[in-house]
């Protein structure tokens, strides 16, 4: 069947273009303008050339924050993706329990970021928090305001608690769409549970899984509110991720030039990784013939 080509349909995306122009393109252009200038406020700017980019590329502070950010994203992906698939595989397929599971799983997703941060901030406190108090009673030295490992574990467990459901729900949706015939064929061939997962379920949920990975990567790479509420970037700079550092620089110190240069490089990294994910995703789709 021949598809109808109607170039006028492009006009239908105009509203989106206008919206994106005001919410993203114009602010981004302003950031580029800031990145080559210096300001002391009062909307007065002085030409600085590529000085801020040079300064940021030499800045240990930025590389450290980038390292922490990459480590954080890698750790939470390594936990959330397998865990989400595992949960999805073990969820009931239909009936009352399936609905109950779905509702319970979606609950963490509905909680606003700062509330999640506050919940965990209180939960982990040694004096009044259930987790912190219990761990202290068991003789475990846990204090996320002083101990780097405790801070990292808290932030990671918090993210896993908040977002594993998203991966699980997406994987569950993928699993539900596999026709029964595949399982029956596997049964006839006496395939083991692992082989069913490896050769039927995994390839079939690959598409949604890539979306889950992309979403979780982007979200975790931009994470700000939750760690900011729990640890404030501390102890020291141990949980100062890129966006926390950026806000400190731009709003705390009002170093607009360096912060703008920082933002552009941050943006480029996100753009690069997202493009790679996107390309892999679309190529997978084409191979699968969706």
């Amino acid at each position, binding site marked *: 069947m021949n598809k109808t080509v109607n*170039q006028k349909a492009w006009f239908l995306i105009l509203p989106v273009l206008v919206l994106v122009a005001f919410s993203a393109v114009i602010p981004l252009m302003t950031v580029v*303008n800031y990145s*080559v200038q210096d300001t002391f406020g009062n909307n007065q700017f002085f030409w600085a050339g*590529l000085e801020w*980019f*040079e300064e940021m590329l030499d800045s240990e502070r930025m590389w450290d924050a980038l390292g922490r950010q990459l480590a954080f994203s890698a750790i939470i992906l390594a936990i959330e993706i397998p865990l989400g698939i595992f949960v999805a595989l073990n969820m009931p397929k239909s009936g009352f329990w399936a609905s109950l599971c779905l509702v319970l799983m979606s609950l963490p997703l509905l909680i606003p970021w700062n509330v999640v941060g506050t919940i965990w901030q209180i939960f982990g406190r040694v004096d009044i928090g259930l987790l912190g108090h219990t761990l202290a009673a068991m003789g475990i030295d846990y204090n996320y305001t002083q101990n780097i490992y405790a801070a990292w574990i808290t932030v990671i467990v918090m993210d896993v608690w908040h977002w594993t459901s998203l991966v699980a729900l997406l994987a569950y949706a993928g699993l539900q769409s596999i026709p029964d015939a595949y399982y029956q064929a596997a049964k006839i061939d006496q395939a083991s549970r692992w082989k069913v997962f490896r050769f039927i379920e995994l390839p079939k949920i690959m598409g949604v899984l890539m979306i889950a990975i992309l979403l979780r990567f982007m979200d975790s790479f931009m994470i700000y509110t939750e760690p900011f509420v729990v640890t404030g970037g501390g102890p020291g700079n141990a949980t100062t991720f890129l966006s926390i550092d950026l806000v400190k620089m731009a709003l705390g110190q009002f170093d607009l030039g360096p912060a703008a240069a920082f933002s552009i490089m941050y943006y*480029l990294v996100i753009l*690069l990784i997202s493009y790679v994910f996107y390309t892999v995703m679309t190529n997978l789709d084409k191979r699968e013939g969706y």
Partner: protein
Amino acid sequence: MDWMAWTWPTAAFFGIIAATLITFTVLAIKYPEVPRHGVLGIETTRGDRLFITLLGSAFINLAWLGLLSAPQWGALVVCFFYALAVFRWV
């Protein structure tokens, strides 16, 4: 437009980007894009190759700035050959 803190170099930069996008749109209308498989093993159209060129050029410029103390136009020369390579082989 004062609040956007425009400068001539940044205005020229965005002007060139806009002109490139318009050129490629016109090209796409006149000579429809044909996807092909290049050295990266992925299917790319002319627009994809432009995106890869622009994104790559940004990183080449940053690497040049961070690693070498040579003048920045050197990076642009590298970018030019990079662009040729991308449009030829990717």
